């Protein structure tokens, strides 16, 4: 499948996801959607990291005795795994804060729920 696509295609997808994430963060005022924006931003960076470590026809980096010379980079996969875990923690914390904000203010709109300005 990936052979038929141009080599840079996953990078383009990652940048598009990055743009979508930033778009949501900038233009969507619903707090839940802001959380989604951060999750999409995180996914785009995960995709970017995984792609830059991918080698076409490479083996998974799990062997002690290497079957072939060409292997997928293991470090970026470790980075991605760490980022996924951090992303889960962040989303959980933000969602709990959103619930608290909703209980206090009765709205999920980032402008209407704002108490502090200036």
């Amino acid at each position: 499948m990936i052979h038929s696509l141009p080599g840079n295609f996953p990078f383009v997808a990652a940048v598009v996801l990055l743009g979508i994430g930033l778009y949501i963060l900038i233009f969507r005022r619903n707090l839940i959607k802001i959380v989604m924006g951060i999750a999409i931003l995180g996914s785009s960076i995960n995709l970017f990291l995984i792609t830059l470590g991918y080698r076409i026809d490479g083996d998974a980096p799990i062997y002690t005795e290497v079957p072939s010379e060409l292997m997928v980079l293991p470090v970026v996969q470790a980075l991605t795994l760490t980022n996924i875990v951090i992303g889960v923690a962040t989303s959980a914390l933000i969602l709990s804060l959103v619930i608290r904000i909703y209980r206090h203010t009765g709205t999920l709109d980032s402008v209407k729920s704002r108490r502090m300005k200036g």
Partner: protein
Amino acid sequence: MSLLIEAGYEFWNPIIWLIAFAVLMALVFLFRKRGQAKYKKDTDQTRIFLCGEEVPEAEQRYVRGGNVYWGFFETLKEYYNGVVRPHTGVVNDYVIWFVAVTAISAIVLFIVELAR
């Protein structure tokens, strides 16, 4: 030696400052000692005198924190109108500023390098 900071045209030695401070404090003490100590407490001598008018309660006769520097803000009204407006307190705007600053500094960096 290690007490000293030498900064270009000036230097800073706290020992000299401390001596000056001690001399000033001694002067203050001398002045204070010359004051009248024989007033009667809790009589009219310690009450506030306002041309014979009735003195308002403590709550009323005090300039509140929000009213301090009123003239300063009145003079700089236009500046403050401009500078307070971006502080919207909306989280979306914070992300806009971040994206804008990143873009502007990237453009500045590249333009300066192209110009060379």
